[in-house]
C-alpha cells in the first residue's frame, strides 16, 4: 500500500520535473553557469580571456583590486550611494506617500506625476540633470542667481589634481549632483510600492483609532508604520540591490571617464563601472578575472547588508 503510494508520488514528481525542464535548462545555461563561472574565474591568476589560459588558482585578482585605488573609489562611491540615497529616498517616498494617501482630490494626478521618473530613460534624464547643473547656463545656477548666490561651477575638474582641497571640493559637488539625481530617479517606484502598502491597510483601524482620540502622529507611529513594515522591508531590499548596481546615472551625468572634465582619477566610478571597465579591457591578461573578483565583492556586500537588515528587523516586521 505504502509502496504503491510512493511509486505514484515518484511518477508524479517525474512528470513535474519534465514540465519544469525548459525553465530549468534556461536557468542553468544563463544564470547558474555564469554565476559559477564568474566565481571560478575570480580565482584564476593571469587569466587570458581569448585563449582561456591561466596560471593556476589563487587570490591574486583579489589582491590586485584591493591594491587598486580606483577600486577603492568604486567601493566608497557605491557605499555612499547606498547609505545616503537609500535612507533619503525612502524617507522622502514614505512622506510623499503618506501625504498622497491623506488627500482624496487629485490623488491620481499626483501619483502619475510622481511616477514619471520611472518611465523616463535613465541616460536621457541624467543628461538633462547634467545640463541643469551646467555652470554657465544651467537652471540650478539661474535659480541660485535669483536669490543672489553666485554661480557655482558644479561639474568642473580642471586643475584639481594639483590640490587635494580642490579635488575634494569638486568631489563633494559631484556627489551632491549624483545623490539628487539618484534620489529623484528612485523615488517613483518606492512611492508606488508604499501607496500599494498603505491602501492595503484596513480603514477600520483608522476609524477605531479616531474614535479613541488617537493623534495623527501616534496613528502613523503605532498603526500605519507597523502595518506597512512588510512593504518597507521589500522597498529596502530592492533599493539596496538597485543602489549597489548604480552605473547608468554616473555615466549619464559624468560621462564614461566617471568624473568632471579635467579629472583623470575616475572620481565618480562605481563597482559596476569598475567591472565594466575591466571587461572592456579584456585583451589585458587578468582583466576579466579582476572584473569577476569585483563582481564577487559586490555580491558579498549585497548579501551582507540584506542579512544584517533581516536580523535587525525580524522582530519589528509584522506579516499578516
Amino acid at each position, binding site marked *: 500500500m505504502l509502496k504503491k503510494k510512493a511509486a505514484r508520488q515518484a511518477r508524479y514528481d517525474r512528470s513535474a520535473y519534465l514540465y519544469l525542464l525548459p525553465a530549468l535548462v534556461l536557468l542553468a545555461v544563463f544564470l547558474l553557469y555564469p554565476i559559477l563561472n564568474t566565481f571560478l574565474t575570480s580565482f584564476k591568476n593571469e587569466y587570458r580571456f581569448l585563449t582561456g589560459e591561466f596560471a593556476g588558482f589563487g587570490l591574486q585578482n583579489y589582491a590586485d583590486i584591493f591594491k587598486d585605488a580606483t577600486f577603492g573609489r568604486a567601493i566608497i562611491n557605491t557605499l555612499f550611494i547606498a547609505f545616503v540615497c537609500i535612507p533619503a529616498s525612502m524617507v522622502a517616498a514614505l512622506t510623499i506617500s503618506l501625504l498622497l494617501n491623506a488627500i482624496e482630490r487629485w490623488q491620481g494626478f499626483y501619483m502619475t506625476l510622481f511616477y514619471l521618473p520611472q518611465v523616463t530613460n535613465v541616460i536621457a534624464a541624467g543628461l538633462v540633470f547634467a545640463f541643469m547643473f551646467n555652470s554657465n547656463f544651467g537652471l540650478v545656477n539661474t535659480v541660485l542667481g535669483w536669490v543672489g548666490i553666485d554661480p557655482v561651477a558644479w561639474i568642473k575638474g580642471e586643475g584639481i589634481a594639483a590640490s587635494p582641497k580642490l579635488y575634494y571640493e569638486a568631489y563633494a559637488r559631484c556627489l551632491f549632483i549624483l545623490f539628487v539625481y539618484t534620489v529623484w530617479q528612485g523615488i517613483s517606484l518606492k512611492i508606488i510600492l508604499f501607496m500599494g502598502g498603505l491602501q492595503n491597510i*484596513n480603514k*477600520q*483601524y483608522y*476609524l*477605531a*483609532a*479616531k*474614535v*479613541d*482620540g*488617537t*493623534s495623527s502622529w*501616534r496613528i502613523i507611529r*503605532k*498603526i500605519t508604520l*507597523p*502595518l506597512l513594515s512588510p512593504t518597507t522591508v521589500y522597498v529596502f531590499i530592492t533599493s539596496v540591490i538597485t543602489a549597489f548596481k548604480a552605473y547608468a546615472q554616473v555615466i549619464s551625468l559624468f560621462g564614461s571617464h566617471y568624473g568632471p572634465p579635467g579629472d583623470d582619477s575616475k572620481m565618480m566610478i562605481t563597482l559596476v563601472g569598475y567591472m565594466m571597465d575591466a571587461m572592456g579591457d579584456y585583451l589585458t591578461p587578468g582583466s576579466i578575472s579582476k572584473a569577476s573578483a569585483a563582481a564577487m565583492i559586490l555580491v558579498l556586500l549585497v548579501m551582507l547588508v540584506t542579512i544584517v537588515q533581516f536580523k535587525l528587523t525580524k522582530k519589528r516586521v*509584522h506579516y*499578516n
Partner: protein
Amino acid sequence: MQVRLEQVTKTFAGSKNTQATAVKELDVTIASGKLVGLLGPSGCGKSTTLFMIAGIHDVSEGHIYFGDHDVTALPSDKRGVGIVFQNYALYPHLTVWDNIAFPLLNAKEMKKRLKQRFAELSPPMANFKAYIQRLVEEAAKLVELTAYLDRKPAELSGGQQQRVAIARAIVKNPSILLLDEPLSNLDARLRVQTRDEIKRIQKQTGITTVFVTHDQDEALSICDEVIILKDGVLQQQGPPQEVYDHPANQFVAEFLGSPQINLVGGSIKANKLYLGNEEWFALPESLSDQPVNIGVRYENIRPDRENRKQAFEATVTSIARTGGTSTVQVRLADGQPMRLHRDSDDVLQEGDRVRLYARPRTVYIFNAEGEKILQC
C-alpha cells in the same frame, strides 16, 4: 447616559448631484443603562445611525444629545463612546494587552482624565503604570480573556477576538457602548453564546449600549428595547415582546418573528372581516369597507374543537415534522395558503379538512398601505 436623536437626517451625496437619504427625520430616545437593538433589513440606515451616534458620520440635519448635552458638532473622540466594529478592527501587530490598553495610552485628554481618576483612588495606588495595568486586567477579566493577554489577535478564535474588541471599547469607561453587527462574523453556536455574553457584560457594567443587527432573533433575545428602521424611517420602538405582540404595521409584523407571519388577503364588508371570501368574524369597531391583509402568527392558529363561531375551514396540504413540532400547511377555501405549528404527535393527515381559529386579539388587520387598522 441617555441618548436622544431629534429629527436626525443623513443624506449622502451620490454621483451626478443626486442625493441618497440614509436616515430620515429620526426621533428616538434611548434610556440610560439600557441595551437597545437597532434592527432592520440591510440598507435601512441602522449602521449609519450608529455611526452618527459615534460621531464617525456627520449629521445632515437634526441634533443628537447625550443626556442634556448637544453632541451634534462634537468630534467622535470627544464624545466618550466605545465602539466595536463589525470585523472588530483589532490591531493585528499588537498583543491583546496592547490592543486593550491602546485607548488608555492615547490622547492627552484621556491621560488627564485617567491621572485624575488615579489621584482620587482610594486606597491610593503606588504608580500610574500599575493603575493602567489594573484597568486593562479588569477589562480582560470582564470579558474572560485574562489567560490570553500575551496573544496576538490572529491566535484567537472569532469569539475571543470579539471579546477583545469589547474590552478595548469599555476599558476607557465610555458613557455609551456601540456595537456594529457584533455577531454577524460568528458561527451559529458561538453567536448564541456571545449574545448572552454581551447581555451579561452590559448588565454588569450598566453602560448604555446600542447595537446594530439585521437578525431579529438576536435583537429579541437580548435587548431591553428594539428600534426598527426601514428605508431610514423609524417604524416602531419598544420592548421586544411588546413589539412582537403589537406590531405597528405590516412591515414590522413581517420582519419580526421566524417563521414569518401568515399574511392572507381578505376584506372588510359591512363591518365584518372576510378571510378570503369566507366571512370570519364581526369587528368590534366600525371600519369602512376595503380590501385588507390579515396577519396571524403560526403559534396563534389552533384547531377548533368546540365549534366556535370564529372558526374557519381549511384543507391540510402538507405536514413537515421537525422534532417536537411540525409545521402544517393548509389551504383556505379560496386557495390561499396558511401555516401553523402543531405537536408532532397530532393525528392530522394530508387532505384532512380542519376547522381552525385564532383569538381576535392575535389577528392583525392591515390596509392596502400596510398600516395596521385594527388589532382587537
